[in-house]
């Protein structure tokens, strides 16, 4: 158990953890605040306590199913270690989360870059922040020395092309677009040919937001995906679902249905700084095996960071153990 404490101590020094610590202040404040209140030393460990813990987790958008499993684990741990001090449950909770979600596997959250050209496709429902995310990812990749190009694949929403264009100017990278209303697949086709001729390293493709239950729009996306794969071998190298952290359990349906159509390679979780919940992270991890690659923890260009589940849980429980 000293392991967790040790880990946290080392994390405190880690630079990357600071962003989580700030960005997730709201989530932490809520979860931790409630749990601390619940788990004081003179509280009896009984069913009422367990169901109160359940409430805290559900309120954080962790989801009913996931919550029930976590609390079941907690019950087992209490029995196994004959814990009778409620305060000791705090460390127990953190440990369970670590065991469930960190495991031994090392998940590579780096975006896959292959030579000579990599294509990253961004998909998601309306209003989750796809275009903004592309701006931030372009910034990340450009800082690493890549020659980046953005493709305005959202030819439907009013102002979407202009929005991406402004981002490309801010970041200072190449930009490809066709007139509004063009067939998005043809935009991709032309963009990839342009990219090949102009020695672009990474192509970031925007798409129009679509609700996952719109059959025609999902078929359109399937076609876009296919066209990209035909023009560049093994592309898209990353298909990233952009997900709004304030989304509730519908986030799971989104991940599932977009995965069916485009084989997602990862999730970008945006607006995590704005929610007191953000528990959807655990729900996605639990139900679908799609890694969360990037998280948006603020509004500036630098606030998109590679996701680290350890740091996420740390962010959730800093100073708690």
């Amino acid at each position: 158990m000293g392991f967790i404490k040790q880990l946290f101590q080392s994390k405190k020094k880690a630079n990357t953890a600071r962003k989580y610590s700030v960005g997730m202040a709201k989530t932490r404040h809520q979860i931790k605040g409630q749990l601390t209140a619940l788990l004081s030393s003179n509280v009896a460990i009984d069913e009422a306590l367990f169901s109160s813990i359940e409430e805290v987790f559900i309120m954080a958008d962790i989801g009913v199913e996931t919550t029930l499993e976590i609390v079941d684990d907690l019950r087992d741990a209490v029995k196994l270690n004959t814990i009778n001090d409620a305060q000791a449950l705090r460390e127990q909770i953190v440990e369970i989360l670590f065991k469930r979600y960190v495991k031994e596997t090392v998940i590579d959250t780096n975006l896959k870059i292959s030579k000579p050209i990599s294509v990253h496709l961004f998909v998601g429902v309306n209003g989750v922040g796809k275009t903004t995310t592309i701006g931030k990812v372009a910034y990340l990749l450009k800082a690493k020395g890549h020659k980046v190009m953005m493709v305005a694949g959202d030819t439907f929403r009013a102002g979407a092309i202009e929005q991406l264009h402004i981002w490309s100017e801010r970041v200072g990278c190449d930009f490809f677009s066709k007139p509004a209303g063009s067939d998005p697949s043809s935009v991709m086709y032309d963009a990839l040919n342009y990219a090949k001729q102009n020695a672009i390293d990474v192509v970031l493709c925007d798409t129009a937001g679509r609700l996952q239950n719109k059959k025609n729009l999902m078929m359109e996306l399937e076609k876009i995906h296919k066209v990209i794969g035909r023009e560049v071998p093994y592309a898209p190298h990353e298909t990233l679902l952009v997900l709004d952290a304030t989304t509730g359990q519908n986030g799971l349906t989104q991940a599932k249905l977009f995965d069916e159509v485009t084989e997602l390679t990862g999730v970008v979780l945006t607006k995590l700084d704005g929610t007191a919940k953000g528990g959807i992270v655990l729900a996605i991890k639990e139900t679908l095996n799609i890694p969360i690659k990037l998280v948006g923890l603020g509004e500036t260009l630098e606030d998109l960071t590679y996701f680290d589940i350890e740091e996420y849980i740390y962010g959730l429980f800093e100073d708690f153990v």
Partner: protein
Amino acid sequence: MAFDQLSDRLQMALRRMRGKAKLTEKDIDEMMREVRLSLLEADVNFKVVKSFTQSIKEEALGDKILKGLNPGQQVIKVVHEALRDLLGKETSVFAFKKEGTHTVLLSGLQGSGKTTTAGKLAMYLRKHYQAKPLLVALDVYRPAAVEQLKTIGKQLDIVVFEKGTDTSPLIIATEALKYAKENNHNAIIFDTAGRLHIDESMMDELKQLKTLIKPDDILLVLDAMTGQDAVSVADHYHTQLGITGSIITKLDGDTRGGAALSLRKVTDVPIKFMGLGERLDALEVFHPERMASRILGMGDMLTLIDKVTENVDEDDMMNIMEKMMSGKYNYDDFIKQLKMIKRMGSLGGLMKLIPGANKMLKNNDVDEKQLIVVESIIGSMTKKERKNPDLIKQNSSRRRRIARGSGRQVSDINKLIQNLEMQISTMKRMSQMDPNTINPNNPLQSMPQPQQKRKKGKGKNKGGFRF
């Protein structure tokens, strides 16, 4: 419709109660657990769920239900009423000012759909109140937000007032008010930048805008997919701004939309409109009563009737019906009818409003693309052929020509012919139906069902044209 899955869960929970002569307390507890979990999975706020199940349980335990004749039915009724109460007891009418200028300030988180909703609302006010709306672009932060509103304005032919992104929203708003006065606009919709409810400096800007504009309505635009946080968002916005109502967007998705349920309950602010699609006419008045029915899978005939009367020329419709029943129905009428359906908006959305169609449609999506196919086929017919369907039916070389002309397969033409005939026969059956035997909860059920045709030949199941 968004609440489908929730209704499925509730129906599952309630099915066990149906037909039971008497409910024990244990029965009710078990059912409340289902209702509770279902609502939680639907993202209804935890506290709301608690008080909701508590109040139902109290009522369900009362003598009225336990000793009633059909407890299952009673419980459904109680749940339905409680859901309706949760959503707000009555439809909140948008009180458009007849005199002077009606000002609306739209607010909300990033990505909730404010700009699109601004366009929809302007169109709605023009259509229903013959207003002369002005859209004002106050989102100077998000790249191209002004462009977006301008494009929407152009699409709708509605004036957009903007000063680019270098002027402060307060100055733009002041000038917009002046501009509206000079140009006789009697409705002004202010589109603001999305902001986190916890971002104090941005919330201050909204407060200043409120003081300046003194809006008749401050509406919170909320994404139907929002999770547990919906309540704290609404609560923050409400305490800081004193919102007068809300608009739930993206209800055409498959979210269960629990956020909408809790929002009203916790803030006591009516939900005025709901956004049901990306088209700019996809904004409807929010009807709590109807929505409660939808949640329970009872369908929503009232909205359907509203839509039909709004968009369909009654004379035209009667004409077509008459022709159908007399067997003189032809492709000209067919295309006319299609165009009417198109005007009414998304087909999928429309079908969901019909009680019972909900279940029928589950694995049978209505494809709007099919309408385009049909139009192209009929477009390739000669005038004579359109008037006289038999010509095509009896002559295969005509069918081949039409197939070539429209770029389709002959089998597609055959499907269309079958479809036309089926429609005629359905109409005939309906006209023979005894109105007294129609089950008001499910009129489709009482309709004689057409015999399923056995599929002929091999080939992939491409699915016929479905209407």
